């Protein structure tokens, strides 16, 4: 919370106290902190003059909002139709075992967050995975392994 307090203050200064600015404020906090802490949510909702559950509702509606701290690196595995047929699901299961987390979760050392996406629009490269901003085509567990190691060493 302490990390978010200062950023929060500047966010609140930027927007008038109206419900229509709720999403803007959530986005700004998300962009600066990587996630929206419960206390920040409370303060933002109070500033926007909406019930705090409404902020929660908005934040869970959009995939882009996170309510928990995210790992340093994000792994996205595509589970769109093409990737699904080419074994995307197996990639995810593999990562779940390897990192000892479920999809949507973050490793204990806050290094990786594993997410699945529905389509990245790169079906020709199926199965696709993205580590941070690096796209991996025809992904295999071995290729993923290499990317994760590279990310870790950055």
């Amino acid at each position, binding site marked *: 919370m302490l990390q978010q307090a200062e950023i929060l203050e500047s966010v609140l200064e930027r927007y008038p106290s109206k419900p229509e600015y709720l999403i803007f404020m959530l986005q700004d906090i998300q962009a600066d902190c990587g996630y929206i802490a419960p206390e920040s949510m409370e303060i933002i909702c109070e500033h926007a003059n909406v019930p705090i*559950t*409404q902020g*929660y*509702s908005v934040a*869970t509606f959009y995939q882009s909002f996170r309510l928990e701290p995210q790992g340093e690196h994000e792994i996205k595995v595509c589970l769109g139709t093409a990737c699904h047929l080419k074994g995307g699901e197996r990639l995810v299961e593999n990562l779940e075992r390897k990192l000892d987390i479920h999809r949507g979760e973050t490793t204990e050392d806050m290094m990786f967050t594993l997410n699945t996406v529905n389509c990245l629009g790169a079906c020709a490269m199926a199965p696709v995975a993205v580590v941070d901003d690096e796209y991996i085509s025809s992904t295999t567990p071995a290729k993923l392994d290499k990317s994760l190691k590279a990310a870790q060493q950055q």
Partner: protein
Amino acid sequence: MKNIVLTINGKKVSAPPGTSILTAAEKNGIAIPTLCSHEELAPYGACRICLVEEENSGRLMASCVTPVAPEMTIHTDSPRVKDHRKNIVRLMIAEHPESCIVCNKGNRCELRRVAAELGVAETRLYPMPNHKPFETHNPFIVRDLAKCILCGKCIRADHERVAVGAIDYSDRGFSSRPVTLHEMPLEKSRCTFCGTCVSMCPTGALSTHNTFFTGTPETEETTICGFCGAGCSLSLGVSDNRVVEVNPSPDRDTVNGATLCVRGHFAHDFLLSPERLLHPLVRETDEEGNTRLAPTGFDAALSTVAGRLADIKRRNGEESIGFIGSAKCTNEENYLFQKIARVIFGTNNITSTGAAGGHALIREVAEKTKGTCRVRRLSSLENADAIVAVLSDTDHAVPVAGYHIKRAVKKGAPLVVIDPYRSDLAAFGGVWLHPEKGGKSGAFGIDAINALTARLIAEGGVDRAFMDRYANDEHGWLPAISAKDPDALAKQAGIAPERVKQAASMLKNRKIAFVPPCDLLERQNGKALLDALFNLALITGALGDKNAGIFIPALENNAVGALDMGCAPDMLPGWRKISDASEKESVAAMWEAAIPEKEGKDIHAMIEAAEAGTLKALYIMGENPLRSLPDPERVRGALKKLDFIVVQDILQNRTTELAHVVLPGAAFAEKQGSFTNMEGRIQSFIPVVSPPGDALPDWAILAMLARKAGYPEHYTAIEKIRQEIRRVVPSYTALGSHRQEWVKQNGSEIPDSFPLAPLHTPGTGSEPDEKFPFIAYIGSRRWHLGAGTRTARSARITASGRTGEIEIAPADAMDLGIANDSENGGKPIIRLLSPFGAIERAAAVNQGLPKGHIFVPQGFYGNDAMQIADFNALKPPGSGWRNVRVRIEKM
């Protein structure tokens, strides 16, 4: 604007522009099925069951959200519409658990009804039940979100009607559900358990936690809630002569509409308490000199009462008998009760414990308005132009009034909250005036109102014309306050002057609705605060306006009616002063009986007289003074000195333990009668269930007593009492003719002139000192009504585990070293000492309290909070027993 003409099912209908097709059809007797629409909620279009077909365009549209348009040709049940409806219901059912046979909603399930009407049985779809945890942990609401159809009624009821915001949708699509913040259980959320969502839920997703009954009640009957002064209409579900379920009544034009509060919805299980009084009891003494209360019949018990009271009257005079009536009993009962006291026993010693529960405020405002401005509808409050809430306790004491304030704010009415505590209302938006740097001054409220008043005068924001016409400034208040510097007054109150300016600019030239707390005159400096408030109401012209004025929340269901019926030592029915000989004579003529000359004793004087030995007997109806009055030990000592105590009540309680005769009465749902609510609405009701055991309606017991005591008039039916009330009390001429009547006002709406009160310099009262450095306020929490004699007998309220911690400001908790304990989940036990007594309870930090303030919730632990209060503070004019200086000892 001109009405729009369209055709629905071949019938030409017309409706004002903006009407939905659904409403237009319903108004013309054409029913369209729907699962998500409710007349009190904004149209939403979630369930799509109300689809209709428009012939010209061939479109299918949801009739609840489509406004009527000229020349529309609508079919509400064409084959195409029916086909679509069926498919929608099939999809809902495919997702729904097949558990109808064991579902709490039983025959009230709207999904099942709609499915049956459409002929949907087996869906022939792949079942995809959306399993969610079955939540039964709290004693009020069972949540089985697997049965949710996402109609959003619960969410909309929460946001639009009760304005709490405890739940909202989560996620998207199939996994979306109405959830609390971070999907916590309800008891860990902001939910107040008003149950409004439960009554609206069309499926078994939300149902009442009921450990003693499963299924659909046999009958449902309407009555009026017996708890607070809002006077909500209830629909009681009855099976086997037991009230098994409570919902808001579906009648129109009720106070509460579709809402209720936790007490109204869930606490009525006290009616089934094993501690209900079932038989008349008379104290017997055995050979060894031990006494006990032995069951007997009404005839024997009432003979004892009539005989003993007559005997005491003969030996010690009329003044030696006292009568305590009840703001919980009906108008008819209070009328008969005071008449028995005055005519049969010849004493004006008739009062109620309302002296400690809100009567003073009702009386004072009636005095100031000269008996006018009696009707103050909560629906007007909802449409107010601006609201000033002072030390408001409506959220807890009279929750339904609180909903109306919040709805007004949601509609855009500016809200100014004057309160040192950060209540829910203070956090609701608007401007909150409070001592920003803390402070324990009991004069804060007065200073704040004066600052606001001076600022409004300085900016010309008051209604000069109204003031010149109606205000009588005999004490020179206006020049005195005009001479004050608003900023200096603001600083004196500890408020930043800009804050007061902001509030004044919001209120400027508006007709303001003022909402004081129901216990205002039981607080320190309450009278002076009311004077300041009243002056402000007067100069802003609020008193002459329909949606403005002073809205007095009443703590008890019939606080207003009991006073109207003359349940007061100085007043006859219809607010006729005993000191006024002509008024007294007019009543005496109607009664054809003499009325005692002298004004009677109020509650304080009665207890003192009992201590002194001049009062010998008390007849207590529907009150539990040993629980509801300050300093219960002193009250007990006084009552023990009496020769004879009669208690007529519904529950065994501490006062019945001292009684010589106990008469079992009937609770509100078990009798006929009428209550008058805080709005001036007289609501008549009939029994829904019969009283338990031999218990009888209180009016019937009183009628039998009158007969035993030799009174010639026989009140064999309630109608006989009503006839007399209609004759004697001018404002009740319509009593009983309809389910709802309004208190009638003779003559003009407002008097020719109101006196402006002088500018007060606040008295010191119970200011904290070195020995007792904190200032405590004994107030309400929504789980209990007043002293909690009834709510504490509610199995659900008890099971909710609310322990009524003593609430302490964060800074004080830190100083005392108890903040950390409470963060760890453990609740430190503290001892709270006042000059009058001490209590021990767990403590909790309340972030909304300023340093130096302590909140002690009433009603918990046998209402032990009264032990720290000062009985003498009840002595008129009352010095505010609810505020007391205290110190804390850590245990």
